[in-house]
Structures are given as structure tokens and as C-alpha cells.
């Protein structure tokens, strides 16, 4: 759509801008302020420049947490996106079943994140949890507080349970917005199921998938409450992700300078990955449009 050039549109943006600036720019400036200083008390502080940043980037514990974070985010994306598309394709489209399935599938999304952790804690405990108990009865020594592999598998399973519905929901409504005429044309052409998916459904899903993947990446990268409740970051530090390292440092140890520097690095990584992903997808679409034209 070609838009009208009109700078008075700023007036429409203004209320939103003030509110977001209040809750984004002021705190962010506080963080920047801390990140370049060493604060002893209210009156004694020293300018440290980039020292905290160097220290944080060279901290082996944080590097390990960062690697774990990437491994976790990529794993859940690789499982949730295909699974979510699959669920969206088999969800019933009409009648009461459609409403019922929609409500059931969406349920995990609307549970507070620490409750999700509690649900899985209850579900996977060896003594009182259905899953933990069954696995033990089957002869597998399942134990998330001692075995890192079990802890990882459980957290990934929990995340799949929790967030696949988002991808499924977005894809479902994306699919519903495809006019029936497209499917009729495909039927006349005797298109195979795969061809219908590849050339009709998938292109229509690109936009929702971009949003879905971006949201999923950002949220998985910020994951905090669920593993905190479920495993507390353990065993050892095998499931300690970045947010948890950060809150321990900022609230637990009150290391303002280092944790502020760490916050900024953390934020920049998310920004960079999202930006690269977004630009790559947009360029791909532009290329495709150019080819068609």
C-alpha cells in the first residue's frame, strides 16, 4: 500500500512513545550508567569504562551459560516449529470440535510461567509424579536432580509442551485465512497433498511463521521461571540459562556493574540474532517477488 507522507502522524504516535520511553529508555539508561561504573555506595563510584564488559566476555561460567542458551533455543525451535505446523494442519476446522480443540491446545500458553514449572515439577517427581514414577517403574533410573541428561530432556519436553501451541495457533489462523478457491484450484489440478502444502499453504504461512519463530527465539532466549522452578538450574549448573545467571548476579550478589554490562551484552545478542533473521527473511521474500515480476 502506498502511504501518504504526513509528519502530523507523529501526534498519533506520541502517547505510545511517551509510555514506552518511560518504561524502556529510562531503565536502559540506568543500566548503561551502571555498566561503566564501579559503585561502592551512594556517594563513592568510579568510572571503569569497558572493564566490566571485558570481564564478562571472558567469564567462563557466562560463556558456558551462553552456549547452553544457544543449544537450548535452537533445539526447541527445531522441534516446535515443524510440530506446530503439523498440529495446525491436522486441527479440525469446523464445528464444535474446532472450538474445543482450539481451547485445549491453547491452554498451556495461558498458564503463568512459574505454574508451568510447578506443573512439571509435580508431574516429573519420582515419588509423586506420573511421568517420573512411570519411567522408574519401567526400569529407567529417571532423576532430574542428579542426571543432567534427564534434566535437559525434561526442560525441552516442558518447553515443547508449553510453546508448541503458539506456533500451532498462529499457523492455524494463517491457514484459515487462505480462501477456499485456492484448494479448489489445486483439486482441479490434481495436486498432491505435498504440493498443496508446499505451494499453497507454506507461502501463506511465511508471515506468521516469521513472527512465530521470532517470538519463540526471543522467549526461549529469555527463559527464566520454568527451569528455575523445575530444576533450579541444576544439577550443578547444567540447566542454568542466561536470565538465571543474570538475576543471581544482580539480585543475589548485588554486583551492579558487571551485571549491567552483562545485561547489555545479553540484550545485544538477542537484537543481533533477531535482526539477522528478520533481514534474511525479508530479503528472501524480496528476491522472490523480483523473480516473479
Amino acid at each position: 500500500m502506498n502511504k501518504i507522507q504526513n509528519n502530523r502522524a507523529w501526534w498519533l504516535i506520541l502517547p505510545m512513545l511517551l509510555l514506552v520511553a518511560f518504561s524502556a529508555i529510562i531503565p536502559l539508561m540506568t543500566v548503561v550508567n551502571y555498566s561503566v561504573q564501579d559503585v561502592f555506595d551512594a556517594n563513592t563510584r568510579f568510572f571503569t569504562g569497558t572493564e566490566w564488559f571485558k570481564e564478562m566476555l571472558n567469564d567462563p561460567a557466562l560463556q558456558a551459560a551462553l552456549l547452553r542458551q544457544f543449544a537450548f533455543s535452537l533445539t526447541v525451535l527445531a522441534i516446535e516449529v515443524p510440530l506446530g505446523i503439523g498440529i495446525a494442519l491436522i486441527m479440525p476446522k469446523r464445528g464444535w470440535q474446532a472450538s474445543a480443540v482450539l481451547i485445549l491446545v491453547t491452554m498451556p500458553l495461558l498458564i503463568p510461567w512459574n505454574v508451568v514449572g510447578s506443573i512439571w515439577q509435580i508431574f516429573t517427581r519420582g515419588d509423586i509424579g506420573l511421568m517420573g514414577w512411570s519411567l522408574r517403574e519401567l526400569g529407567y533410573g529417571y532423576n532430574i536432580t542428579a542426571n543432567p541428561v534427564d534434566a535437559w530432556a525434561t526442560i525441552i519436553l516442558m518447553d515443547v509442551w508449553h510453546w508448541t501451541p503458539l506456533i500451532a495457533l498462529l499457523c492455524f489462523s494463517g491457514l484459515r485465512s487462505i480462501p477456499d478457491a485456492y484448494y479448489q484450484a489445486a483439486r482441479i489440478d490434481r495436486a498432491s497433498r505435498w504440493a498443496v502444502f508446499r505451494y499453497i499453504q507454506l507461502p501463506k504461512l511465511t508471515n506468521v511463521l516469521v513472527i512465530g519463530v521470532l517470538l519463540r527465539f526471543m522467549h526461549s532466549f529469555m527463559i527464566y521461571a520454568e527451569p528455575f522452578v523445575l530444576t533450579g538450574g541444576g544439577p550443578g549448573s547444567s540447566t542454568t540459562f542466561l536470565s538465571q545467571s543474570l538475576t543471581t548476579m544482580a539480585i543475589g550478589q548485588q554486583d551492579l556493574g558487571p551485571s549491567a554490562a552483562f545485561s547489555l551484552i545479553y540484550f545485544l545478542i538477542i537484537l543481533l540474532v533477531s535482526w539477522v533473521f528478520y533481514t534474511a527473511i525479508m530479503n528472501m521474500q524480496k528476491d522472490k517477488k523480483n523473480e516473479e515480476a
Partner: protein
Amino acid sequence: MTDSLVSTPDAVRKHAAQAAARRRRKSRSALAQWRRRGLMAAYIVFVLLPIYWLLNMSFQSNNEILGGLTLWPESFTTEHYVKIFTSPSWYMGYLNSIAYVLMNMVISILVALPAAYAFSRYQFIGDKHLFFWLLTNLMAPPAVFLLPYFQLYYTVGLFDTHIAVALAHCLFNIPLAVWILEGFMSSVPKEIDETAFIDGYSFPRFFVKIFIPMISSGIGVTLFFLFMFSWVELLLASTLTATNAQPIASVMTQTKGASGIDWGTLAAAGALTILPGIVVVYFVRNHIAKGFALGRT
């Protein structure tokens, strides 16, 4: 079918083969449909099993929970629910959470509507950068803002109020609302605005009387997402509150006592947090099922 009159033996054979293929296709699609239903059912069982377990626990006494694994409550009890509904520290947690979520939804949608309209209709200096900057707020990890928020709201005297949490959640909810609404608004033809202005509508009257009804399902979907992300967030919510506006999420940590975790009450409180979500999905289910394609097409 080109010839309905089958005469030559060759054509008869061809006709029969075609009919057989049609039958095969039909039975294969019936089979596919059953497989579909089977897979869907399997997924729903996967979704419901942990929730069932939570409900199961919430209706058991703590003795039964710790005494051994029972697949359903054998001595059915509602003591945990009674405890939650009769003790103000528990039910106020729910009311506090609902209060700040509603405030956040109202604030976010009110400021996001005009902003999204501006982004979808006008070109102005810095529009693209502004939009990208908005999206970056969606990417800010709440853990980063924990400390500055605490200091900021403490300084302006809003600490431990509902509005503090509502404003803090605006950080990610306003950008999300603008993002979703902009997509919906861009699918409304611009000619509608122009016609209305020619007919003598002022901008506010046009916006409220004509434009908002046209994107009502977009507003429904947006409100759903606003509710969702504000209701589930707890890191900021519990940091910015102490006692007066404490969300249910931090009340739930009370269940960890000296004598271990009060599993029954924890399960009952968890089960009750699911309810508001179900109510909200119920209201927007038709908007979602009608289909929407987010983003710019």
C-alpha cells in the same frame, strides 16, 4: 468424464479403472482422516496429561499425595480450594493479578490503536526506525530491567501498586499490540478512510465509529495476546510488588514451608490460574478460527 455413453470394450475397461481409482482415493482419504484424528488425540493427551495430574493432586489430601501414587483422588477433598477461597492472602493474589492485567490491557490498546493507525497509513520522518526500535523492546529480557525498574518505581513512589506492574508490562505489550494491529489495519483498504473524510467525518469520529468496528476481530486477537503475556509474566510483577499488589505467582511461593512443600495447595492454586485463560480463549476462539495473517503481506 467426457463420454457418459460407454460403448467400446476399451472404454468400459477404462471407465471401470477410473471408478476403482476413485473408490481407492476415497477409502484412502477416510483412512487419512482417522490417522489425523488419532494424531490430534495423541497430542491433546500430551497437553492434558500434566494438567490432569495437577487437578488430581489438587483434590487429594497431603497425606494421600505423599502416601503413594494414586491415579485419581481416592479420598476426594476440596480442602485446598476452601483454603484458597477463604484466606485473603490467597484470593487477593488472584485479584491483584487480574487487576494489573486489565489495567495493562486497557492502557496498551488505547495507545497502540492510534500508533498502529499512523504506522499503517502514513509515511513520516523516522517511521521505519521507530518501528524497529519498538520491536527491540519486545526482545529486552525482563531480567535486564529488573533492577532499574525497581529503582525507578521506588523513586516515583509507585512501588507495590497495580499500576506499576501494568506500566512495566507495557514495555513488551505495547510493541506487540502495535505490531499485531498494524497488520490488521493494513488489510483495510485506504479508500474507506478517504470516503469517510469526504463525507465530512472528523478524524476521531471516523476512527471510533467506522474504523474500530472494521478491525474488531483484530482488536479481539490483540487483547488475547495482551492478556496472555501480562498474565503469565511474573519476574517483573513479583519484583515490583511487596504485599499490597502481590500477584498470585509470588503468593504461591508461600507453599514452601518449614515442613516441606504443601503440594495440595500448590496444585490447587496452580489449577485456578488456568481458569481465566480458558475464559479468554473461549471469547476469542471465533476470531482465531476465522483466520488472521499477522505481519505485513
